[in-house]
């Protein structure tokens, strides 16, 4: 059964969610295995808050199950999940007004070493991403953390491909600008 599930398409799995409980659970397990990391990473990177990310992540998969069990046809599962996550993250960010660091305030302090450890690099980059405007932050997370193609990002965010490309370019230029003082300290 597990092997067969591996071979099923997202559409078939979504249809199985409206079947009996046992079948639905198996389908859910497979969908969860395919997309949980991606959705969770997006939530966590976007809201930058563990508890909030956990809540949003659970709501996303619950909404998937609710929609599927009601017979709603989901043609493209990955963008569907990310769109729900995106909307919920937007709402939470709006509710919390502003939890990002402005580019002007960006400062990670100084280090005596002539290189940065991996964890430090990760923290610096995360801070820099959080300092980006929301429209740039979103596409950078999708591109660099979730390894999505430009086209997938365009589908998930309901934008034109050229818009996505421009946003990614501008986001990266911003990051390069922010991180320029530290880039030389990053060891290969």
């Amino acid at each position, binding site marked *: *059964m*597990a092997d067969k*599930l591996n071979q099923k398409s997202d559409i078939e799995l979504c249809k199985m969610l409206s079947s009996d*409980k046992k079948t*639905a*659970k*198996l389908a*859910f*397990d*497979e969908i*969860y*295995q395919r997309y*949980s*990391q*991606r959705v*969770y*990473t997006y939530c*966590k*990177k976007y809201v930058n808050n563990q508890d909030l990310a*956990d809540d949003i*992540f*659970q709501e996303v*998969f*619950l909404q998937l*199950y*609710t929609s599927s069990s009601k017979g709603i046809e989901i043609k493209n599962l990955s963008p569907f999940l990310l769109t729900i996550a995106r909307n919920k993250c937007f709402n939470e960010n709006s509710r919390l007004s502003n939890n990002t660091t402005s580019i002007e305030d960006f400062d990670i302090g100084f280090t005596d070493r002539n290189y940065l450890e991996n964890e430090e*690099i*990760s923290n*610096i*980059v995360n801070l820099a991403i959080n300092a980006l405007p929301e429209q740039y932050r979103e596409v950078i997370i999708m*591109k*660099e*953390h*979730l390894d999505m*193609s*430009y086209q997938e990002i365009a589908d998930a965010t309901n934008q034109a*491909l*050229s818009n996505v*490309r*421009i946003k*990614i*370019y501008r986001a*990266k*230029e911003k*990051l*390069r600008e922010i*991180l*320029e003082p530290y*880039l030389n300290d*990053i060891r*290969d």
Partner: protein
Amino acid sequence: MYEETEYLSSSEQLVAFLDGELTQEETTTLFYELANNPELQEQMRQHVQLKNSFKNTLVTPPPALKENILASAGLIEKTQLIGSNANRVAALLIGFFFNKFTMALTSLLLIAGFGYYFYSNNHTSPEIANEIPLVSSVSVDSDFDHSATSDSFSNNVSSDNNDPKNNRSGIEQIASVSKTKKYRQGKFTSNADDITMLNSKNSSEVFDQVSTNHENYDKMKEVNPSLSHNFNDFKFGPNSYSRPDFRRIKPVNLLPGIIDNLSVFFRMYGANSYPDFNLANESRPIVNNILLGFRHNLNQNHAISLVGGVENFLMTFDKNENGIIYRYNQSWNGGWLGLGYHYTPGEINSISMVPELNIMAGATATGPIFRAGAGLNYYITDKFYLNGGLEYVLLTYNESQFSSNTKWFTTNKFGYTIGFGIGF
């Protein structure tokens, strides 16, 4: 990859190339530009470093989130609820203070109770020791020797024992002493029946039996067959605690020896669980962690019981799902039914407390359950007692309950119990 009408600057082409979004033709153009533009080369170096800093960043969600989703969707049995912060704080406070404080208090009481029991049963107090010769000095002759009785009392009792008419007075005094001793052992309140008994045929022998703490009640019955049978042959238990209470009225007894020795008991638990994790209990706190049992006294020390209860257990187990092993933490509520054995070593002198040890074994829907406990029963009346103690519980469950593999897991609980018992 992009429409021909769309113009891409060298920098944009560079970013798109690093993202794998440029066509072969566009890449050729970019490389030509790179070869002739040192500034673009520097940009490329920085973008490559930036790109490298993003690697390996996919995050795996905590396993508990999946269970929460499945439970909320109704795809697995609802085992846990995501509590609000207020609930978590309340659970933490209750768990930390109430459980531990009560366990510590109960432990102290148990140690004190058992300690006092062993001490008092091995050491006769001077007060009682003085009284025993007084009563035991009564003649055991077949004929009741009034003068001997009176002499025995002459140094201690200020009543006129020379007058044969005062024999009753002397007997009353003796009965009074006897009563004092018995009262220290329990709930004896009557002297009228003692007097009746003393006026019987072999009063002196009965007299002696009374004074020796009722240890041979059968002899008393032989001496005075008319003596009331309205009490059990056991010292302990709701029905038998006040054994010497001769004034009790004998109830209608349809099943002699069964009903008399039967009692019902109820207990509640407050226990710490191992494993322990922050999961809210099923939202039925009133019926969680309770026990109801029917107990039958076999003799003065031993009893058996039929018990059942509803209890909450925190479970941790591994489950193989499609080749992936998940660790589940869940809060499980279920009923259990079992048999128990109770041992009461003896009563604690001068206070109405009886220590009790018990073990129970039973079954739940997930696997066998075992319990062992120690407690103290405090008798408010001869038919009603309060109970407090400590209890250890072991629940064993099989993974096959939750998947196709067979592997056993256990949950241990240790905590206090409070409750009461009622005799029939």
